[in-house]
């Protein structure tokens, strides 16, 4: 239940502005891949092209191919909604739906699409998703309370539970821990380690220790200067990137000499 992603010569534009240029990357199924790099280098922008969330912004477009197990996401006639049911996403700031209870938040992907589901199936799905997000024990007694009443870390895990409840092939995470304290961060990182048994996980992070802790492979993005497009500088096993990078810029960045 997970697919690999292969990106070929991808250029990402905001209007006429080229934001990310010429990315080629192969992401294995059932692995954790981390994107690191300085702010504004296009990691988040590139991540959003992997489930066509990028084009939600006005004027945004893409050239090139993103293959999900060989199927081009940007092929003619591909419905972005179908893509997003296969490639889920967790955002930087926890964003549970404020009008819904914890239970309804987990079931949001099902309910918002008006899929019929029996109460028993729904209960199973809620428990399984919350177990999967390491949140079940903390919320099982108050599933009918609003999701916005949880702590920040719990809300983020609720968002992860919501994402895995629709059973995607790939989960994208855009700096999922940047708004969390170290203990919640640890909980989310443990979760990522468990998720890779079933899903392909791609995570953007500013925290290099986090990339080193959770990922199998790491991609380093960089930008030549303001107004220039971001580029993929190096993509290799995480240990290689941190211990023996082939590029000077990567070595400078991971050793803290810039950025």
């Amino acid at each position, binding site marked *: 239940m997970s697919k690999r992603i292969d990106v070929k010569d991808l250029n990402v534009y905001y209007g006429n502005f080229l934001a990310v240029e010429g990315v080629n990357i192969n992401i294995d199924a059932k692995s954790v891949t981390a994107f690191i790099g300085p702010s504004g280098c296009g990691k988040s922008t590139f991540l959003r092209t992997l489930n066509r*969330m990028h084009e939600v912004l006005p004027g945004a477009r893409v050239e090139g191919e993103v293959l999900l197990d060989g199927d081009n996401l940007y092929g003619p006639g591909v419905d972005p909604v179908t893509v997003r*049911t296969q490639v889920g996403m967790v955002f930087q700031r926890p964003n549970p739906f404020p009008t819904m209870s914890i239970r309804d938040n987990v079931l949001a992907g099902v309910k918002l699409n008006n899929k019929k589901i029996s109460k028993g199936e729904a209960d199973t799905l809620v428990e399984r998703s919350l177990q999967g997000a390491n949140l079940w024990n903390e919320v099982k007694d108050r599933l009918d309370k609003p999701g916005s009443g949880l702590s920040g870390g719990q809300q983020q895990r609720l968002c992860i539970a919501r994402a895995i409840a629709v059973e995607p092939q790939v989960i994208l995470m855009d700096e999922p821990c940047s708004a969390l304290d170290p203990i919640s961060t640890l909980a989310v990182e443990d979760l990522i380690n468990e998720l890779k048994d079933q899903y392909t996980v791609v995570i953007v992070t500013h925290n290099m220790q986090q990339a080193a802790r959770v990922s199998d492979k790491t991609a380093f993005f960089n930008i030549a200067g303001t107004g220039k497009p971001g580029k993929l500088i190096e993509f290799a096993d995480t240990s290689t990137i941190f211990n023996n990078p082939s590029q000077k810029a990567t070595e400078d960045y991971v050793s803290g000499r810039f950025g």
Partner: protein
Amino acid sequence: MTVTAPVTRKRSALTKGQLPSYAPWVVLAVALVLGAAILALVGFNVFGWGVVSALLFTVGLVAWSGMVEGARKAKDKLATCLVVGAFLVALLPLVSVIWTVLVNGIPGIITPGFLGTSMNGVTGTFDNKSVEEGTRVLGGVYHALIGTVQITLLATVISVPVGLLTAIYLVEYGEDRPLARAITFFVDVMTGIPSIVAGLFAAAFFFAVVGPGTKTGAVAAVALSVLMIPVVVRSSEEMLKIVPNELREASYALGVRKWRTILKVVIPTAISGIASGVTLAIARVIGETAPILVTAGFATTINNNVFGGWMASLPTFIYTQILNPTSPSNPAPSDQRAWGAALVLIILVMLLNLAARLIARIFAPKAGR
């Protein structure tokens, strides 16, 4: 061996140079007495007494504060006096209106049958009789109440879908396209349309489409919806705009289509604001007089059909009762009915405002553990 005794003071050194807490009351009492004395010289009246006392209070308190506490505190006192004074001036007309309507309206509203009967068959003879012989005033606002409720309800039914869908287009699909900018511009223009013009538009429209002289409650409802739509668009637009984009993205990322996201995530999140905006728009048009006079005409009988025949409403009822008393020689009963109707109208608007608050509270996203 020296013992350091704790310093005992009557007043804390930290509060030195401050006016005592009773100072404003002392100044107020002096100002009131002085004000009454000054007014007694030129002829006493309550309004003048209030103004003079307020001025004396401000001068007295600021001067005293300046002598004891220094310039900064004196300026603070002056600003406080100005702010409170402005608030009282703003409050004056409101309290005065409510007071006048209550005093004049209560005799009308407690007359038996006032809320349950129409003006059908009530002629000048009855009014003359009630003035001369002291019998109770006949006639009531039932027909006008029915008319106001039906016309406003129909206007709401027309305005809310149009206004809400326009707001959804502007916020969710407009993306600053020329069409969206044009709509925004014309909605702004519509906000400024005088209500009589809206009435004339609706009347002319129905004259052209249905036939000359078409005057029904429905025509009035169209006229009112011309006034309501821009208000509903504006308030709904603001409410939809403050729904965080993150919620839309969260929904898209779950593979939910855009229209479902709007229907199930965006609107429920904004519904409390939208509902109270709609209620306030209703309160805004419920008191319109001119557009109803030219579109629904005026009736003295009960008309339950909003699509046929002339219809009364509370504002036009007040207008005709004052302008053309039922008995021209004895206008007092008509005055009483007009004030009673005004009180009913104010109570309706107040209930709508309360309903808006209630709706906002019921629909508000719940927080809590």
